[in-house]
């Protein structure tokens, strides 16, 4: 039942209208049928009452000679037991007769069904099918007077007519309603799409303002909202840029000044601290800006990308092993993705002093694995390390540097590329970081 209930505006309106129309027409029908029933009752009883009164007036106590449709006299109730009784007619008739000064002892009624093959039609009811209502009135002296009246059958045609009328009204109303709802729902759907895919970037055009004024207002409001969000994010970028600049300048000044420190070891340590602060600053800025990457998605040879990152580490004398793999074409933001791979390798180097990098190509996904034989990470912390600014107290002392932004950044970049990143402890010790990317062409986000 729930599945049948339409969810969208036009469906609900159409259904509601159909139900309301149906209810209205049903009430109409009931009223009409009652009216007809009353009319039939009146039509039947009044002439019958008059005929009986006339017969009594004219004939006095004379036996009435029977003519068709006239009043006849019987000694006993002539209506067969099997006929359907009409107590309502009896009650009505008694009332009318009493108005005429006749108070019968008993009134009986019965319907005589018309024969299948109608030979004759009463001209008054030509074209209608009707049965005969037999009315028998027992006078106070015990004799019965009977008279017949036509008893029209219930007419089904009126039901059909009403149904046809309902359908015509429904269609006539539904068409403009559908037109209106379409006019309403099309811009609304556009609005929903725009809101769903909203990524604050400068080049996103404002949504076309269309539809009735109510909807127009909403669209205008949405455009304003989008503009404000974009402006706010621009402001954030500008602010971060300014913060970055303002922090980097004193750092740079400090870096220049420590050249005058005599102690070689001291100076090296200071330089390292400054470099670390600078790296952290870079990471914070990158992470903050990642929601609005400026780099375009391009088709990249992933193997060459990983190879280039590994090569850069090896140029610096780091112990990184990369197993040559086939060429793999993927849609990525190469500079950002380089950074994700670099952060994973950096992590391995930091905690294990070495890294093994492999690429596994499967039909549905590509995995870039960075493995080491370092101390690993406690199972319960395997997901927590992805949270920005998380650092495992046990293994990550201040000297090892970093405030745990590397993995958060890597994860954000991989998510942007439509992939996932997981950490697991290797059997035999060490950590395995896996970037899994879907092989399907261009990722959803562009």
């Amino acid at each position, binding site marked *: 039942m729930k599945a049948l209930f339409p969810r969208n505006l036009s469906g609900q309106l159409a259904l509601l209208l159909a139900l309301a129309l149906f209810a209205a027409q049903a009430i109409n029908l009931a009223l009409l049928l009652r009216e007809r029933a009353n009319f039939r009752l009146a039509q039947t009883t009044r002439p019958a009452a008059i005929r009986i009164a006339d017969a009594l007036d004219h004939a006095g106590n004379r036996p009435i000679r029977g003519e068709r449709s006239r009043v006849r006299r019987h000694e006993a109730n002539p209506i067969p037991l099997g006929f359907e009784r009409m107590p309502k007619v009896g009650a009505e008739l008694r009332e009318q007769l009493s108005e005429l000064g006749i108070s019968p002892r008993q009134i009986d009624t019965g319907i005589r069904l018309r024969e299948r093959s109608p030979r004759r039609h009463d001209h008054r009811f030509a074209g209608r099918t009707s049965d005969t209502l037999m009315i028998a009135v027992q006078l106070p002296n015990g004799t019965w007077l009977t008279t017949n009246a036509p008893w029209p059958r219930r007419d089904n045609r009126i039901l059909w007519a009403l149904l046809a009328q309902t359908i015509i009204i429904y269609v006539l109303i539904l068409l403009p309603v559908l037109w209106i709802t379409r006019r309403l729902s099309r811009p609304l759907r556009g609005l929903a799409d725009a809101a769903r895919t909203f990524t604050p970037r400068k080049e996103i055009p404002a949504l076309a303002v269309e539809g009735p004024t109510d909807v127009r207002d909403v669209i205008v409001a949405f455009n304003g909202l989008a503009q404000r969000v974009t402006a706010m994010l621009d402001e954030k970028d500008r602010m971060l*840029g300014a913060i*970055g*600049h303002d922090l*980097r*300048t*004193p*750092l*740079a*000044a*400090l*870096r*220049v*000044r420590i*050249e*005058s420190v005599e102690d070689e070891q001291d100076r090296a340590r200071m*330089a390292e601290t*400054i*470099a670390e602060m*600078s790296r952290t600053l*870079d990471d914070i800025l990158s992470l903050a800006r990642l929601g609005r990457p400026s780099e375009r998605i*391009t*088709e*990249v*040879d992933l193997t*060459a*990308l990983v*190879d*280039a*990152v*590994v*090569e*850069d580490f*090896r*140029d*610096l*004398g780091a112990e990184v092993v990369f197993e040559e793999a086939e060429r793999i*074409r993927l849609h990525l933001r*190469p*500079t950002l993705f*380089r950074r994700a791979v670099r952060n994973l390798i950096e992590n391995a180097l930091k905690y294990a002093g070495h890294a093994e990098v492999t690429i596994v190509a499967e039909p549905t996904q590509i995995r870039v694995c960075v493995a080491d034989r370092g101390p690993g990470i406690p199972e319960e912390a395997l997901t927590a390390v992805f949270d920005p600014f998380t650092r495992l107290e046990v293994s990550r002392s201040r000297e090892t540097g970093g405030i745990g932004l590397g993995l958060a950044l890597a994860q954000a970049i991989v998510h942007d590329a439509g992939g996932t990143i997981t950490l697991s402890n290797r059997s035999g010790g060490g950590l395995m970081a896996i970037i899994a990317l879907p092989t399907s062409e261009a990722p959803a986000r562009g």
Partner: protein
Amino acid sequence: MLDGNLMADTPHLLLVDDERSIREPLAQYLTKQGFRVTQVGDAEAARTRLGAYAIDLVVLDIMMPGEDGLSLCRYIRATSETPVILLTARTEETDRIVGLEMGADDYMVKPFSPRELAARIKVVLRRLQAGGTRQHAPDATAYAFAGWILKTGERTLVDHEGVAVPLSTGEFNLLHALVTRPRQVLTRDQLLDLTQGREAAAFDRAIDNQVSRLRKKIEADVKNPQLIKTVWGGGYTLAAEVTRL
């Protein structure tokens, strides 16, 4: 007072940075390293000094209030042969590219080691003295050769199908040196000199190693290289037409 001869032998640097906290200690340090340093705080002052002195090299901060470093760099490049080393507060690639396109000879990201700056100044000056091999013409954003496109900004090669093939820093530097000097024979020493000055990363591995890695990426047949050819007597040359894009 220094006598005239000593003055001529001491390279004269013009240090342009609006940050006094960086400029002053840096000038001090560079002076200690044997340079003659004139320091100014804005582009306006730099222009007058450039006219007044025979400046050997300009160390220029990009981010300055008023006229910025890039615009000054463009001016210097348009009016003289004086080499420029840019100082940038941003690590973004775009700064680097724009800087090199403006014709800067090198760039350093803040915070930088003054030692390394001094070393790079010396490299640029030595190149200049050696003559010819100086990175003089403004860098292009991309070079096309033999069906490949080398994008300088992304440090990436793009093949004929449009697939990006990222390069390591070493590979990029080597290939960049080759494509900017097509059909020139470059000795290992020259290549080492050309590739070292441009990046902070230490670059100890032999040129030969980088060449063989590059060949694997761009040659159709590694055993019979047609693009990066070995020249008998020690050296390499790029045997292809290069178009600046």
